[in-house]
């Protein structure tokens, strides 16, 4: 496919995929990329998926692709689609994915690299033992069915109530760590049976916990507001989601909605895009279950953040408050949310699907916590384990160009199988150690699949997002220690 001939280049690193590209598209597509990124993006089927998402009934504006877009299933990863709820707009479980409310949490510390470096091995080992990955076993919690329902209703607040963290953490978590509308009954028994025991576990794949150090401050005013304004300052980033509970909610609803989608007469080019109107019995049921699973994910990250603080306390012999381990923010990057947006000069309620994309609401929006409302919502963009990650803030054009959305990571460049092939015979753990990065993981394969060479350079993604006005970099953080499932 000669995508260059199809795409129309616009200013600000934007490429329009015309509605005429494929009969059935209801809106055009829009890809945020520069020339170099586009070349990588065009190698797999992500752009075709952007076109397919444009078929969703009720979609408004554009089928959007963030700069880290890559081939997913149904939606591309890095895909954003908004549907007009009052005009028959749909919700698609494939636009959220199996890992409902997969997201990222960032904790700051007052520790410096010089203080942490001599204890790094001990710290990573302590984190590895304190923060369960959940592979080959459950987590540290054992919850009754009633308690699981409470988690689904209360989200991170349930965890705080049970001593895992403090109320201030909730203020700097999207939706306060508890999205409205959660319906534990809609979740059903199977997701609770599968995922309940996994509360408080990281999982595997691209999920991780990383100790990082600030190596560049790029927007001092925002960095100051977020408490990460010093080069050499240590932080911790946690990436995980709703584990088996979310996976099973998606599985169960895909089956139901795949059948219902046909009954509503929707003709979609990929069954994984199956959708129902938000305002339909099936749509309401899915929204309630998805929101409950989202709350489970926030409770999960809340527990993991708590054990992270305890691991630091154990290693450094001071309380986490003395170590300054405040939470900077917690973002979701796999969710469909009801939000108010202005489309063609009219305010309307949209169901905004972000599949591997981060919400980026600018300064002034009431959803942004008070302490950040003057700078805009913090955005956490992890890169690969060998290079760096970015702390960013919503850009001034995000609302108008992407329904307040931006990228969520580096984006894969190589498949898992290819990464393993390329790395065969290499001691990745040792190579990273030589770069000063201590890694503990469950086996070589899980590490190799997530090796730096499997990912694009997150700096390229960040730059494009910045130039497009979607998000602005605040600080760059370099990895020091990594634990992986």
């Amino acid at each position, binding site marked *: 496919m000669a995508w260059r001939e199809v795409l129309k280049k616009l200013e600000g690193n934007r490429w329009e995929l015309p509605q005429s590209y494929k009969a059935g598209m209801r809106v055009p597509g829009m890809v945020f990329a520069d020339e170099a990124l586009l070349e990588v993006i065009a190698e797999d089927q992500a752009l075709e998926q952007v076109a397919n998402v444009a078929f969703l009934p009720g979609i408004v504006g554009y089928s959007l692709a963030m700069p880290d877009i890559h081939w997913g299933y149904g939606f591309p990863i890095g895909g954003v689609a908004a549907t007009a709820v009052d005009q028959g707009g749909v919700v698609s479980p494939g636009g959220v994915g199996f890992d409902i409310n997969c997201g990222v949490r960032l904790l700051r510390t007052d520790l410096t690299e010089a203080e942490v470096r001599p204890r790094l091995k001990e710290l990573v080992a302590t984190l590895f033992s304190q923060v369960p990955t959940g592979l080959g076993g459950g987590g540290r919690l054992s919850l009754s069915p009633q308690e699981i329902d409470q988690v689904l209703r209360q989200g991170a607040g349930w965890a705080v109530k049970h001593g895992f963290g403090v109320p201030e953490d909730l203020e700097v978590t999207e939706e306060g760590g508890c999205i409205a509308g959660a319906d534990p009954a809609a979740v059903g028994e199977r997701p609770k049976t*599968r995922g309940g025991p996994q509360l408080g576990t990281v999982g595997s794949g691209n999920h991780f916990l990383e100790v990082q150090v600030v190596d560049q401050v790029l927007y001092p005013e925002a960095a100051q507001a977020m408490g990460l304004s010093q080069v050499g300052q240590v932080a911790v980033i946690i990436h995980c989601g709703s584990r088996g509970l979310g996976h099973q909610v998606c599985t169960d609803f895909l089956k139901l909605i795949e059948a219902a989608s046909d009954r509503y007469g929707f003709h979609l080019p990929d069954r994984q895009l199956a959708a129902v109107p938000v305002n339909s019995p099936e749509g309401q049921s899915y929204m309630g279950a998805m929101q409950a699973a989202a709350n489970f994910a926030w409770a999960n990250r809340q527990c993991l953040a708590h054990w992270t603080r305890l691991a630091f306390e154990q290693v450094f012999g001071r309380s986490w408050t003395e170590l300054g381990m405040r939470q900077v923010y917690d973002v979701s990057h796999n969710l469909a949310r009801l939000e108010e947006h202005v489309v063609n000069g009219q305010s309307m309620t949209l169901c905004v699907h972000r599949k591997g994309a981060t919400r980026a609401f600018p300064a002034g929006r009431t959803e942004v916590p008070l302490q950040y409302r003057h700078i805009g919502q913090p955005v956490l963009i992890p890169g690969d384990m060998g290079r760096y990650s970015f702390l960013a803030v919503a850009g001034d054009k995000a609302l108008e160009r992407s329904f307040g959305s931006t990228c969520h990571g580096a984006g894969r460049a190589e498949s898992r199988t290819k990464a393993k092939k390329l790395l065969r015979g290499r001691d990745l753990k040792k190579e990273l150690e030589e770069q000063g990065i201590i890694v503990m993981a469950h086996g070589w394969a899980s590490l190799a699949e997530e090796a730096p060479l499997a990912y694009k350079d997150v700096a390229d993604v960040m730059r494009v997002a910045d130039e497009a006005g979607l998000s602005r970099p605040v600080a760059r953080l370099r990895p020091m220690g990594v634990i992986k499932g």
Partner: protein
Amino acid sequence: MTGFTLLEHTADIGIVATGASLEEALAWLAKGMFSLLVEPSTIAATSARQVSVEARNRESLVVGWLNELLYLYEVTGFLLKECRVVLPEPGRLEAVCRGELLDPSRHQVQTVIKGATYHHLEVSGNPGAAEWRIQVILDV
């Protein structure tokens, strides 16, 4: 040719299974999926599980089969070594699966599989055909 191969996909992973019958291809598909979880040679066929799946069409039956096995694995730890699949009527699958429960001292879990997807799902073959082929993409 019967068996399974893994398929490249940027973020996830696919399995292509082939068999002399749809039943046989479904059995290879299951083995392919468990080969991603645990090294197959470390699984012993010491216990059995009965699995039933109902679905509205062949494609949904394929996805439902894998998702049922994933559920069984995550809830009970059952690792499939081999299985016998029968399709008594359209939209229904019955299987006897042999394997054992996960024992972390002997089995190294390599990944978490979140679910089987409908994306690029292909089932080809006809009654009487010499070869059946199934392609599924898993979210890992």
